[in-house]
């Protein structure tokens, strides 16, 4: 199988605390990997290591010419900065003059109107801002999307729309998607494989074999309820 990412014995350490220990997995091109696990298990740390923003040991091998689009969970940005959605998107474009058509295209894709894109980013709702980040990621014509809890803090209908959007983009643009989620229903529905970062052990495999009550209890340290919608 054609892999877009191979991770071999990846370890990340902050001082004396080892957050990730000898983690190995691979991601096939065009597939979808869900990363689950309790808070503090190192899910965001894994993503930061994958994009090279924190030092790590072991090997991270991306396929040649891979283009990563990253959608972070939280931003440290002040809410009152006068940067509009459009300012942010234009900042991604390498060609200042030919960029407006490209920006309109990604705004259409993620469902943000032109009026909303002219608002300062601090005034956008959680869902609008996540869509803007996805639009920004799409401007770089990514082959891989890394989404860190893309639907956190968004209302139920908004979550569903965003999940469907990501799934649709993945199919239409043959993207590989890595996403962190606490929504096990979503994981079951959309993930090809699940990487489960537990306090004591790590497991990897298709949702059907990973999302079992016993394994989830072991990973989270407490019984976990979730509903599977069979299509």
């Amino acid at each position, binding site marked *: 199988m054609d892999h877009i990412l191979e991770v071999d014995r990846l370890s990340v350490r*902050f*001082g004396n605390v080892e957050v990730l220990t000898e983690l190995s997995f691979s991601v096939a091109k065009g597939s979808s990997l869900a990363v689950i696990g309790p808070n503090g298990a190192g899910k965001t740390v894994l993503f*930061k290591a994958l*994009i*090279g*923003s924190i030092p790590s040991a072991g090997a991270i091998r991306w396929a040649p010419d891979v283009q*990563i*689009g*990253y*959608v*972070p969970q939280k*931003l440290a*940005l*002040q809410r*009152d*900065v*006068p*940067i*509009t959605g*459009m*300012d*942010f998107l*234009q*900042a*991604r*474009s390498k060609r200042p003059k030919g960029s407006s058509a490209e920006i309109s295209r990604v705004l259409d894709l993620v469902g943000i109107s032109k009026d909303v894109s*002219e608002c*300062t*980013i601090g005034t956008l709702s959680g869902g609008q801002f996540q869509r803007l*980040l996805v639009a*920004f*990621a799409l401007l*770089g014509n990514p082959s891989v999307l*890394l989404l860190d809890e893309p639907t956190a803090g968004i209302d139920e209908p908004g979550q569903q729309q965003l999940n469907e959007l990501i799934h649709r983009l993945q199919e239409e643009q043959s993207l590989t998607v890595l996403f962190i989620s606490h929504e096990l229903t979503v994981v079951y529905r959309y993930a090809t494989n699940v990487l489960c970062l537990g306090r004591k052990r790590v497991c990897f495999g298709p949702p059907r074999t990973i999302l079992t009550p016993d394994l989830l209890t072991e990973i989270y340290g407490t019984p976990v309820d979730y509903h599977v919608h069979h299509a």
Partner: protein
Amino acid sequence: MLENLVLAITMAIAAGLVGCFAVMRRMALAADALSHVALPGIGVALALHIHPIFGAAAMLFFGALLVWAVEGKARVDTEVVIGVLFSAALAVGSMLTSGEDLVEALFGGAGALSWPEILFGIVAAALVVAFVVTQRNRLVVMLVSPDVARTAGINVRRLNLLYLLTFALTIALGLRYLGVLLMGALIIIPAATAKRLAKNLTQMLLIAVGVAVAATVVGTGLASWLHRETGSLIVTVAACIFLLGFLRK
């Protein structure tokens, strides 16, 4: 006189532009403290009978490098380091400098400028403006999220270093007029005013430049009319404009 004004205006344009990103990065206080580090440089330069600007610039670049190095260390509190070291720099600088020289270094003093000084100032200001204009997009992405910037192919560490060096250069440019205590204010106040009034980034940059230039021109005019120090009047005018902007919104 005219060349003095041209130089002051180019310095104000640079301060307005650089200040926008400083304010949005929440380094308003750091900016002020960083300018203090110029004082020991001025003291050493005066003792060695070389032009104070060289000593100031050298210390400012050193200060910028220090901030950059500390920011790269996750377990060191940047604000504490800046607070302690740069206040210490002010103390050491005050010991090295004295009398008229100290007052001029702290608050600026408008004396006659030599042609090399004017040319150096205009070229340096042009460099600052060119940096902000050409790197504006990268600076915006880095501001929103350094991680996103990384995946967009931006060398975040290098860009950050270049920004801090540009910032240090801008302070060096204004020392002549405003001194080490007040130059930080000309970088921060116009940008803070613009942040309140602007609806997008282009507006913010234009308003900040407008306020910085207006404060510099009006402050310089008032100084010669009232026979007062230029730096104090520039900053007072800038603060009045900020207050008006604050009341308007």
